[in-house]
């Protein structure tokens, strides 16, 4: 399981990769919380394009980070094409607080900007 963080203007991109379960969520949660707290992250794209497997631990991870980001009035979007992962996220009602989109362009639009000229 991997995590890569990038910044594009005011948007933070969190690229997750590999298998996301209870075990792999532990170090990822720590790393994300450090970045979110340090930069007061307000606009986030969680990119699931390279996630090969996810169970319900992913729901906890996302909703927990959302709560942190929402404290600063932030917004999150999930970029995910996998039908299985989307189904699991929807079972956890994640889409009620974070839109789930299939393209980067849509993700930036949901955050109120574009990929080349972010907010």
């Amino acid at each position, binding site marked *: 399981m991997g995590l890569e963080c990038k910044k594009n203007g005011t948007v933070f991109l969190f690229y997750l990769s590999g*298998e996301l*379960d*209870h*075990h792999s*969520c*532990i170090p990822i*949660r720590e790393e994300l919380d450090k970045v979110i707290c340090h930069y007061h992250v307000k606009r986030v794209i969680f990119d699931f394009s390279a996630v090969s*497997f996810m*169970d*319900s*631990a992913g*729901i*906890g*991870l996302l*909703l*927990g980070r959302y709560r942190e980001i929402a404290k600063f009035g932030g917004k999150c979007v999930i970029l995910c094409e996998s039908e*299985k992962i989307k189904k*699991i996220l929807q*079972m*956890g009602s994640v889409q009620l607080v974070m839109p789930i989109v299939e393209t980067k362009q849509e993700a930036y639009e949901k955050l109120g900007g574009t990929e080349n000229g972010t907010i």
Partner: protein
Amino acid sequence: MEQYDNTMLIRFPAKSENEGLARVAVTAFAAPLDPTVSELTDMKTAVSEAVTNAIVHGYAKGTGDVEVFCQRKEETIYIMVSDKGCGISDITQAMEPLYTSKPEQERAGLGFTIMETFMDSLEVESKVGEGTCVKMAKKLSKLR
């Protein structure tokens, strides 16, 4: 005694790194039936939830082993995940969607719901102080 085409028993200590091991083992066990990617993901997800439950809840206080027992008969895969942990006092409540005894650990409370959704059948047997056994089955499609 019912004859199975194949069986597999793996036992490992309740360490979270073994969640991945259990998924890989079940995937390999089902492979001769040539399941679809979707069927494999369903089984992997259900096993992951059951094993995580055993580790996080069954052995919340203390340590022990988790067993994953798989059987195959024709197109059906039977999976049993058991622990000798603390057991569940109220199975009905534990199986309610969104119920979790560990919200502070960011558990979504969807483990059993996911097992039920992704498998064809789910049975949970548990005794407080003795442990929990989760039995699941999935019939794989013949059309591939």
